[in-house]
């Protein structure tokens, strides 16, 4: 199933009856994602998406009665960490949290709970993941994808779409496209994503999209140098012109004390064998140059 999502995904949508939840659930269903349940406390017993999906009061019921194994959370920030913990402690294996503006200290606690439960969290403030031709869990437009063997991971939303579109336009299909989110505290890091791709027999090349702030790209690069030497790898880092000390939209996108710059990330990636593009549109060409034949 490539990584995280695929044909085996049995999705429960937490917040399925909200405006966003319903809108994106329809889009996911239209893409072919197997949505087996919705959860909205107080609406248990009703049906959503034109009668096709049962709604439960709790995730535990969605797991027990509908066999859900994956969750996507469209609950707003104030209730999102609770929803994440509910999913993790009710037996969900893979959790996607879309909401932005979640207080970092709330997420810190939730991430610890998720880790202790042995579950995987993607996000928050992320667009989700798509395994083209199989399932999409999130808000990435389905139309930009092409099935293939390149794994894409990114901290951003629309920048991911841009990169994926460029790949698709060049005929380079994707195994899974994963947006991990731009917040300071996230469940799945670039490094975690690379480890998943490394273990995936359906992924033969890597596209990594990063941005200024933190050292997550550097850590992923260091690991890739050792463990992914055999795979063609390309990267793009946004924020080469960002000034120091200002948050560039994402809570995590800030250069502080001279660390987290695009230059330092680019240097680390190049040292680790990535070819680093100056524009997302260059990624397909660089991937070919790196020896990718797919």
């Amino acid at each position, binding site marked *: 199933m490539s990584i995280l999502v695929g044909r085996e995904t049995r999705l429960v949508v937490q917040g399925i009856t909200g405006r966003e939840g319903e809108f994106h659930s329809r889009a996911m269903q239209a893409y072919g994602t197997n949505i087996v349940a919705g959860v909205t406390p107080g609406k248990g017993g009703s049906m959503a998406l034109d009668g096709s999906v049962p709604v439960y009061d709790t995730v535990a019921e969605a797991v027990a009665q509908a066999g859900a194994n994956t969750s996507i959370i469209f609950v707003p*920030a104030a209730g999102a960490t609770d929803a994440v913990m509910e999913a993790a402690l009710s037996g969900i294996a893979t959790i996607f949290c879309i909401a*932005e503006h979640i207080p*970092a200290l709330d997420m810190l606690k939730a991430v610890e709970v998720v880790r202790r439960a042995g579950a995987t969290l993607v996000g928050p403030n992320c667009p989700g993941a798509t395994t083209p031709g199989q399932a999409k869990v999130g808000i990435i437009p389905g139309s930009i994808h092409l099935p293939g063997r390149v794994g894409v991971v990114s901290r951003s*939303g629309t920048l991911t779409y841009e990169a994926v579109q460029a790949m698709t336009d060049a005929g380079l299909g994707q195994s899974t496209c994963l947006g991990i989110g731009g917040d300071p505290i996230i469940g799945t890091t670039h490094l975690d994503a690379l480890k998943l791709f490394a273990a995936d027999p359906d992924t033969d090349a890597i596209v990594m999209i990063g941005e200024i702030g933190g050292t997550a790209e550097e850590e992923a690069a260091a690991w890739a140098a050792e463990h992914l030497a055999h795979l063609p790898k390309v990267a793009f880092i946004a924020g080469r012109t*960002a000034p120091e000390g200002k948050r560039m939209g994402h*809570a995590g996108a800030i250069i502080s004390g001279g660390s987290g710059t695009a230059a330092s990330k680019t240097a680390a990636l190049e040292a680790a064998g990535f070819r680093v593009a100056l524009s997302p549109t260059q990624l397909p060409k660089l991937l070919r140059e790196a020896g990718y034949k797919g």
Partner: protein
Amino acid sequence: MKIQESDAKSLLLARGLPVPAWTVARTPAAARQAAEAILAGGEDKVVIKALVLVGGRGKAGGVKLAGSADEAEQVADAILGMNIKGITVQKVLVAAAADIIKEFYLAAVLDRKSQRIILMGSAEGGIDIEEVAATRPEAIIREAAHPHLGLLPWQARRLVFGMGLGAHLKDAVKIATGLVETMLVNDADLVEINPLAIIREAGPDGSPVERLVCLDAKVTLDDSALGRHPDLAAMRDLDEEDPTDRIAREQGISFIKLDGNIGCMVNGAGLAMTTMDLVKQAGGAPANFLDIGGGARSDKVAAAMALILSDPKVEAILVNIFGGIARGDEVARGLVRARKEQARSVPMVVRIVGTNADVAAQILEAEKVATAASLDEAVSMAVAAARASAGGAA
């Protein structure tokens, strides 16, 4: 959100931490009055510090001592109105000048790598901690708070012994614990005391005693949590906030002014940075970072347009929208409307792809707006338009 030293110190005081008294003065006369009171209390000197939300005020001359009320007034007069890294000083903090025996560094930070609150301490205080971290990392002691229980007392002790503060064990443990509590209670990203200092002061019987105190304080709050802390949200320093910053904040738009002449309107932070980078790479200069966010309704588009045009240096506008949650047609309609209402006219290049991009194209074509299919093409067009516009203006 950054808050001023005076507010940061209030948050520490609220946790019961030792912070010497201070006064905020907005005029030389008020500073004089504060100094008089301190000197009348038996102190030898006062310190007057510029209250600004940028670092390096000491090097910029924004921190000075004064030994008399006259001198305090003069010093305050010199500091008030001073320009420090683009900020005009509008207020100063006045406090007794401490008799410092030794300085330390102590800060609670939200560490992304370990996903923990880390307490960082060093026996080398009052200096640039980033320099110490880079050159002599072994001089920094780190202790990660328990993710669910906070900093446990034994962790505070271990840190304190590591910093060589064992002689002040009880007070130092209280301060270390209090820093993490300050962070948790206020949803802060950073709570920094630099310097934490052992000072000499007069004891109850007049003889000198040593005391551990927080001499400076820096707190950064998590913007995402301000909604549940109205008292903290009120600490936003409007003195240092541009009118455009305020409008952007109220509209839910991420906006950062830069020095160039090409205004950018983009959806998504990563794509907005990328757009800026490509403008620069193509020989242009971005005038701003602007992420209109997820929904991007037409009223938000209009507000974003107004923000961009409020900068007189802007000579061209580049709109780059990748529709996902944002629907391209809605953005296009917003642009058309904003275009009709705008105060001045500059060339605009629009690139809309993704959800409802076809409808968007029809709308823009009908209004004769310049469009581009690819990001690279849009950037080239915008840079060219800005050059032509600048040429025309010259």
